[in-house]
C-alpha cells in the first residue's frame, strides 16, 4: 500500500462559458458553440490535491463522467497533478441530472476501492448547482464540507478546513473518509510543466461503462432514466424595480422614520 492519502478528484468538462451560446428553444447550452475546457473550479480541486500530495504523499485519481472527448479534461488533470484518470462513459449515462450524475460518480468511487478524501470544485460553471459534490458524499455515506476556501491542516487521518457559508466562516475538522468542495479562493492553480503536459497526452485513461460499475440491477438510477429533475424552462430573470426613498431630518428623526419604514415592510412580508 502506498504511503499517504488516497485522493479522488471529480472533474467535469464544460464549454468555455465566455464563448458558449444558449439555445433558448431547447433550454440548453449549445455545447458545439464553444471549445470544451476543464471546469475552472475543478482546477482548484486538483491544486488542493496536488498540494496535499506534496505535503503528506499519496495518489490522486481524477474521475469524470462524459463523452469520449472528456478525456481531454482528464488529460489536463493528469498534467496538473493527478496520477491516474478514469472516464465514465456510456450512452446510458447521458441526460443525467445532478442526482443521476452523483450516483454514477459514487459507483465509480466505490469501484476504485478504499479512499481517504474526495475533492470537488464547489460547482460547475455550466450547471451552477453545487449539488454533485455533497450528493456523492451522501450516496457514499461519508461526511462532507462544502465551500472550503482554506485547508488549515491535514494529516493522514483528518483534515481541518475553513468553509464560508452565507457570509460566516466555519472551521471544520473532518475524519477520513470524507469529501470537500473547494472555492476559487482555496488556492491558485499551478500551470502544468511542458514535461507533464506531454506525458499526459500519452497517458492511459481507463474507461468504465455501465457494465463496469457493477450496478446493473440498479440501471434505473443512471442517466436520463435516473433523473427525477429536468429543465422546464430557461429565462433571464428580470429584476424588480428598486424603490428608493430619501429620508430627511435630524439623525434621530431619520432613524425613527427608517425604523418605521422597515417595521412596516417587515409586517407586510
Amino acid at each position: 500500500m502506498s504511503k499517504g492519502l488516497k485522493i479522488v478528484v471529480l472533474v467535469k468538462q464544460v464549454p468555455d462559458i465566455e464563448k458558449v451560446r444558449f439555445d433558448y428553444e431547447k433550454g440548453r447550452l449549445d455545447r458545439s458553440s464553444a471549445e470544451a475546457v476543464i471546469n475552472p473550479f475543478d482546477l482548484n480541486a486538483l491544486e488542493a490535491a496536488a498540494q496535499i500530495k506534496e505535503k503528506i504523499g499519496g495518489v490522486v485519481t481524477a474521475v469524470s463522467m462524459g463523452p469520449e472527448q472528456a478525456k481531454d479534461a482528464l488529460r489536463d488533470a493528469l498534467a496538473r497533478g493527478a496520477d491516474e484518470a478514469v472516464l465514465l462513459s456510456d450512452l446510458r449515462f447521458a441526460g443525467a441530472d445532478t442526482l443521476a450524475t452523483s450516483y454514477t460518480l459514487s459507483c465509480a468511487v466505490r469501484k476504485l476501492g478504499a479512499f481517504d478524501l474526495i475533492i470537488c470544485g464547489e460547482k460547475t460553471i455550466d450547471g451552477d448547482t453545487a449539488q454533485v459534490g455533497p450528493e456523492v458524499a451522501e450516496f457514499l455515506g461519508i461526511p462532507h464540507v462544502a465551500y472550503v476556501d482554506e485547508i488549515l491542516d491535514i494529516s493522514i487521518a483528518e483534515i481541518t478546513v475553513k468553509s464560508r457559508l452565507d457570509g460566516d466562516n466555519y472551521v471544520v475538522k473532518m475524519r477520513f473518509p470524507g469529501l470537500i468542495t473547494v472555492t476559487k479562493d482555496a488556492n491558485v492553480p499551478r500551470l502544468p510543466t511542458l514535461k507533464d503536459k506531454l506525458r499526459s497526452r500519452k497517458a492511459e485513461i481507463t474507461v468504465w461503462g455501465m457494465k463496469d460499475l457493477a450496478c446493473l440491477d440498479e440501471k434505473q438510477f443512471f442517466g436520463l432514466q435516473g433523473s427525477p429533475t429536468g429543465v422546464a424552462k430557461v429565462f433571464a430573470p428580470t429584476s424588480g424595480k428598486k424603490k428608493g426613498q430619501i429620508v430627511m431630518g435630524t439623525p434621530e428623526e431619520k432613524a425613527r422614520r427608517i425604523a418605521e419604514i422597515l417595521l412596516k415592510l417587515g409586517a407586510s412580508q
Partner: protein
Amino acid sequence: MTNVSKDALVQELVSIVGKEWVVTEREYMLSYLQDETPEPVRPKAANNLILVKPSSTGEVSKILRAANQARVPVFPVGGRTGLVSACVPTIPGIILSLERMKKLEVDRENLMVVAEAGVTLGDLLRACDEAGLFFPPHPGDEGAQVGGLIATNAGGVRAVKYGVMRNYVKGVEVVLASGKVLNLGGKLIKDNAGYSLLHLVIGSEGTLCVITKAIIKLHPKSEHSVTIIVPFSGRHEALQAVQKILLSGVVPLAIEYVEPDEVNLSAAHLNEKWPVQVGGAQLFIILNAESEEELLVSCEKVSGVCSEIGAGEPVLAETREEQDRVLRIRSNIYTALKPQLIDILDVTVPPSKLGDLMDAVEEIAEKYGVHLPVYGHAGDGNLHVHVMKEEGKAPDYVAKVKSEIYETGIRLGGVITGEHGVGAIRTQELTKATDEAELNLMQGIKKLFDPNNILNPGKVIT
C-alpha cells in the same frame, strides 16, 4: 489663442458639433490633460483649453478649417494611453477627441476592417474575434483608440511574428490642417503609386494631420495558442536562448524578457501570483498554430533549445483564462512600478545587440549605484529600462543615466525609442540622435502638411 476671441471660437465649435460636445470648464476635461506618462517627466497642460468631440469626418474638417484660419493649436487625442505625453495640450488651444467616431466594419472577404479613429483596441479585438479573424498588435491598454494606435505606430508584445501597427495599416482617411479630407492607401496589398504619404502619417503623433478612419489588415484566427514561461539562471542565458529560438524555425508571437522582482511586484499589485518562482531571469513566450499537435511540436522545439542553455522546466498557460492572467501580470509591470517611477525608456537595438545593451545598463546602474529595473520585448530588441525615484524623489543623476543609456543604444545601432515615440518629452533626444539633414527633411515635411503649425505643436520636432 490668436486671431479670434475664445468666445467666438467656442461659438463656432458649438455651431459645428452642438453645445453638448464642446467643453470649456477645466474640471470636466481633467482626464484629457494627460496620458500615462510618469508624473515626474509629464509636462503640465496649459490653461485656456477647449475640448471638442466631433462625430464625423465632416465635423473634424470644419473644426480644423476654423482652427487653421484662427491659428489656434489643435491637439488630437485618443485613449490617452501613451507614455511620452504626445497628446498633452501644452499651450492654449483645442483638444480634439475622436471618441464619438466609433463605426467599425469587418470585411471578411478582404481580411480587413474599416474602423473610425475612436474605436478602442478592445472593441476592435472583440469585433475581429467575433468574425473569426485576428488583429495581432497588442500594445497593452485596450482603451487605446485606433487613431492613436496609428498616430503612434504602436508596438506591443506580438511584434516578433506579426510586426507593429505599420504592418497592418493599409489605408487611412485623414483631415489636413486646412480642413481638406484625404484618403491614402486602400484595401490593397500592393500600392506603389508615388511616395507613401500613408507611411508618413503612421507614427506622426498627430503633428501632420488628424486620422479619422483606417483600413486595417487582419489575419485568420489561429485556433490554438499557448504561453510558455521558461526560467533561466540569469540574463545572459535567457538572451542567448532568444537568439537560438529565433533561429530554430519557430516564430513566436512574442518573446518577452522578465525578471522575478518586477513580475512578482506586478502580480502582488493585481493580487495574483506569478506561476514561476525559479530562475534569475525568465522568458515569456507566446506561440500559436493551427493544431494542438503543431503547437506542442513548437513548444518542444523551444524547450529543447532552452534546455541546451541550462533552462529550467517550462510551464504552460493553455486555457484562455490562464493565458490572459499571465499576460495581464506581464502587462501590468509598468503600472506596478509607476508610483516610484521617474521615466520609462524605450531604447531599441538590433535583437543581437540586446545582451550588450543590458550589460551596459547594468554598468550604468553600478556606476551610479542605482537599481534600474528592466523588462522588455526581447525578440524585438526593445528594452524598457526604468529610472526610479529614491526615497520618493528624483535623484540628481537622472539626466546623466538617461543620456548614457540613449548613447549606448545609438552606439549599438539602435534608436532612442522603438514603440513609445517622441511626444513632448523626447524631442531633445531626437534632435541629438538624428542627422541634421534628416531633421531638416522632417521639418520640411511638417511645414508642407501644416504650414501654420497648428497640429500638435511642440511634439516630435520643434
